[in-house]
């Protein structure tokens, strides 16, 4: 058995009760939780240790970020609906929902682009303050994840759909897996949004 490759199958393994792909993506998401979790932990350390913290909301646009939150949550819904369509083997419906997911991801990136451009225009680059460094690091890493998700979703939506006819179970499993990554990206933003945009106050220490 030492030369056997890991099979591309949606069969549940008897030892885990899951198929390989499902377990694999959840393990990957666990590592991503640690990645973003470490960043959040670092932010909390920096914030509580720095009495001279300015109010970040003076530097950031809450309306734009609220729009992005709505965009990402909607894209999560269209993503899960595309999985439903894949389960139903309805190609047209699948393409519509997957296309919407990719499009909403693009909207998110465009809005982010405007935000970043405005920051640089107003001379608030990452070097301006610890807060701006944190802001660019967190949202930049998150945006890279959005971009990666868009690539995967576009591939399954428009370049790999033959598998819906030839191997529908595996295809629906792939779509669900891509969905798990996309929902995770949405989940990270759900935490990023209040922490960076809403929960920033002036100096905490009044000693």
């Amino acid at each position, binding site marked *: 058995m030492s030369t056997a490759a890991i099979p591309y199958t949606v*069969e549940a393994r008897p030892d885990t009760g899951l198929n390989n792909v*499902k377990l694999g993506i959840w393990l990957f998401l666990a590592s991503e*939780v640690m990645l973003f979790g470490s960043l959040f*932990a670092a932010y*909390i350390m920096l914030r509580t240790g720095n009495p001279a913290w300015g109010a970040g909301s003076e530097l950031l646009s*809450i309306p734009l970020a609220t729009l992005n*939150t709505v965009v990402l949550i909607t894209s999560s819904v269209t993503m899960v609906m595309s999985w439903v369509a894949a389960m139903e083997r309805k190609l047209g419906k699948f393409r519509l929902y997957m296309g919407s997911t990719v499009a909403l991801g693009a909207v998110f990136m465009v809005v982010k682009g405007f935000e970043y451009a405005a920051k640089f225009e107003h001379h608030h680059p990452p070097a301006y303050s610890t807060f701006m460094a944190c802001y660019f690091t967190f949202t930049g890493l998150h945006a890279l994840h959005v971009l990666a998700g868009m690539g995967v979703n576009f591939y399954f939506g428009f370049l790999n759909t033959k598998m819906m006819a030839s191997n529908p*179970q595996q295809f629906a499993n792939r779509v669900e897996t891509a969905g798990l990554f996309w929902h995770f990206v949405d989940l990270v933003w759900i935490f990023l949004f209040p922490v960076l945009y*809403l929960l920033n*106050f002036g100096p905490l220490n009044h000693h």
Partner: protein
Amino acid sequence: MDAIAGHDHVDLKKHVRTYMLVFGSLMVLTLVTVGLRYLDLPVVPAIMIALAIAMVKGSLVACYFMHLISERKLILIIMLATVFFFFGVLLGPVVTELNEINPIK
């Protein structure tokens, strides 16, 4: 409907209804989170309420969009272990550096 491991006897219509309910809840909670900002609450309650709402939203996404609520226990155990390690990463440095952050006079 063919059974994919983990989604045997899936009632897709029921799922879709759940997704729409979750979508509505997430929108409402987003508006509540933003609206709270204009209440000018003191620091500690503001942080606690905002993070509590974020955790509810996150749980909705995880449980229903990511199917965690009907997923095998093994996955839940993995994610709980991750949460445990996250708190370790968070609290380890905080606890050991507490005197630097908020010196006891």
